[in-house]
């Protein structure tokens, strides 16, 4: 598979009253064309900031302190503002949890759909209207001609999310970043939107970076999964590997915290404690204060990434030896 996005050793920092804090700590991953990578982890672990770093939309007090982001092999993390802006929509598009934050309430759906088409494709208004209607059809909106003249508040939540997806897809981006796109929606509508994203991904051979805290959504849409904890990537693997052979105690904890709707006897096993704040300095593995397997080593040294044959990556000292025995060889990289 062709690599679309590559993120290497990304460090993202915020300037705050208490000094600089790191929200993303040395995170590396990649996404291929036609592939969906899901990023999961607790609230505040750095999922959104990772994605905003990729698309160059960090809050004003945030910056990429080191590392690189490459799109189709070309570095994009240090592009001048104007070029970044051109890239948005045509190469990388993003959709958010609350469509109302991204849609302009005083402009019609049609206007907001036509604008990027006219801007990037240099086509006439009539042609843009035609393509806009086509896009609305593509995302499953009934009576698209009528919708073009409506304002966002006249649409239901599910419909708005579809409009936002239509706008995001207007200029055929190679990569779609979706940050909790269905969290605010009801399950029956969520199912429609997830189907839609999956369909479009296949049809357009898009890469998708999907952020969610819902393990059910992950199982439904992901090809690969990256688990983050307190700014770090702690585990990454194929969706089968993550669900069937989770390795990091944090990932296992997350999976054990979700009630299983098909198994009435399933007992929840919560992870004790809560996510540390960004200011907190934690020696060794950042998860050790909440980890029931923590050993002396975990309290002293940061675990490197251990890789298995299955392309499964885990940062946990427990897997130093286990993996070696099981797979014969092991690459430790720092």
């Amino acid at each position: 598979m062709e690599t679309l996005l590559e993120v290497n050793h990304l460090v993202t920092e915020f300037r705050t009253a208490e000094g600089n804090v790191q929200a993303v700590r040395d995170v590396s991953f990649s996404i291929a064309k036609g592939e969906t990578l899901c990023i999961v982890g607790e609230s505040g672990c750095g999922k959104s900031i990772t994605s905003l770093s990729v698309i160059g939309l960090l809050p004003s007090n945030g910056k990429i302190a080191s590392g690189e982001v490459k799109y189709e092999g070309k570095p994009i993390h240090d592009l001048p503002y104007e070029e970044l802006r051109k890239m948005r929509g045509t190469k990388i598009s993003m959709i958010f949890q609350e469509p109302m934050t991204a849609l302009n309430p005083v402009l019609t759906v049609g206007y907001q759909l036509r604008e990027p088409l006219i801007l990037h494709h240099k086509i006439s208004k009539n042609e843009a209207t035609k393509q806009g209607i086509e896009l609305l059809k593509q995302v499953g909106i009934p009576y698209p001609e009528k919708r073009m003249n409506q304002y966002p508040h006249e649409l239901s939540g599910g419909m708005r999310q579809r409009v936002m997806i239509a706008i995001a897809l207007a200029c055929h981006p190679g990569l779609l970043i979706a940050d909790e796109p269905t969290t605010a929606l009801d399950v029956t509508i969520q199912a429609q939107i997830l189907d839609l994203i999956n369909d479009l991904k296949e049809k357009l051979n898009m890469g998708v970076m999907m952020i969610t805290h819902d393990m059910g959504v992950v199982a439904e849409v992901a090809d690969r999964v990256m688990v983050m904890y307190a700014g770090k990537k702690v585990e990454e693997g194929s969706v089968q590997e993550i669900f069937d052979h989770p390795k990091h105690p944090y990932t296992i904890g997350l999976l054990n915290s979700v009630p299983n709707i098909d198994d009435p006897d399933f007992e929840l096993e919560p992870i004790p404690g809560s996510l540390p704040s960004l200011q907190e300095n934690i020696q060794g593995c950042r998860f050790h204060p909440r980890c029931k397997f923590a050993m002396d080593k975990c309290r002293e040294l940061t675990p490197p990434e251990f890789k298995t044959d299955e392309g499964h990556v885990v940062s946990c000292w427990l897997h130093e030896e286990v993996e070696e025995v099981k797979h014969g060889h092991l690459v430790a990289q720092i």
Partner: protein
Amino acid sequence: MVTLSPKSNQKILLELKGVKKYFPIKGGILKRVQGHVKAVEDVSLHLFEGESLGVVGESGCGKSTLGRAILGLEELTEGKIHFRDEEIQDLKRKEKLKFVKEMQMIFQDPYASLNPRQRIGHALEEVFTMHTNMSAKEKRASVVDLLHEVGLKEEHFDRYPHEFSGGQRQRIGIARAIALNPSFVICDEAVSALDVSVQAQVLKLLKTLQEKYQLSYLFISHDLGVVRYFCDRVLVMYLGNTVELGTVKGLFANPLHPYTQALLSAIPRPSVHTNTKRIRLQGDLPNPANPPSGCPFHTRCPIAQEVCKVDKPAWQEVEPAHFAACHFAGTKI
């Protein structure tokens, strides 16, 4: 009508009879009533002592309104509510006071109901000030007990709301709700805003407290996984109507209403081995101010027939202790 409870010989704590709540829609220059949002439409059910009754359904289907109506926070448009055999829907403020202690509510966002400038310990002490005549020393001791009860520490007494994490704040909300030893607690999306890891902690706490104090819960949630884990019985609502009610076991194993079937199959499963057939509903939820004729679900129902557009299906006990409102209840879609 005899209804078997999941645990037999349980006593009925709360009973709803034909409860309706309509909100007027006012419009025009004269602000005349132009119609009604039928938020809760003819709900009849009972809640047993010590049970957890889940209430599920899509946004706007009337779950919170039902909860607020039970607590007397909404005036009923029609219907009766009995609590321990006493009719409570028309009680005046003073008479209501004894029920205030017995019935409590935990909200999705406890932060919204906490004064940001008041120390948590003092906020909790106020509950005792209002409803008991404890001395200052007794109050403090009771609050410290409460903090321990919900898994917090004495050192948290002097902290302010912003110094707590989401899960800890929800524990404070729980502490406040159980302070006066209630017998009935409504949890309105009480764990929905929490991360799964923390959600699991809070669910465990609620269960422990239930066993210890024989609490009954009305557990409002849009998360059916959580409801299956937490509840004994479950009520499914659609556009203000009750469409199905059964034991968690019975309803999940054999959903009778097409909406329940679709809802259950739409939930993304946290597993890569589910091969269940997905039922995809078409279209959006209708507007509750202008609900469809006949069965409220007929506009999205995959098995709807002519009769569904015309006649509203009756609420029937289709199987023992398993109710549904559908002309074709039990048909699998």
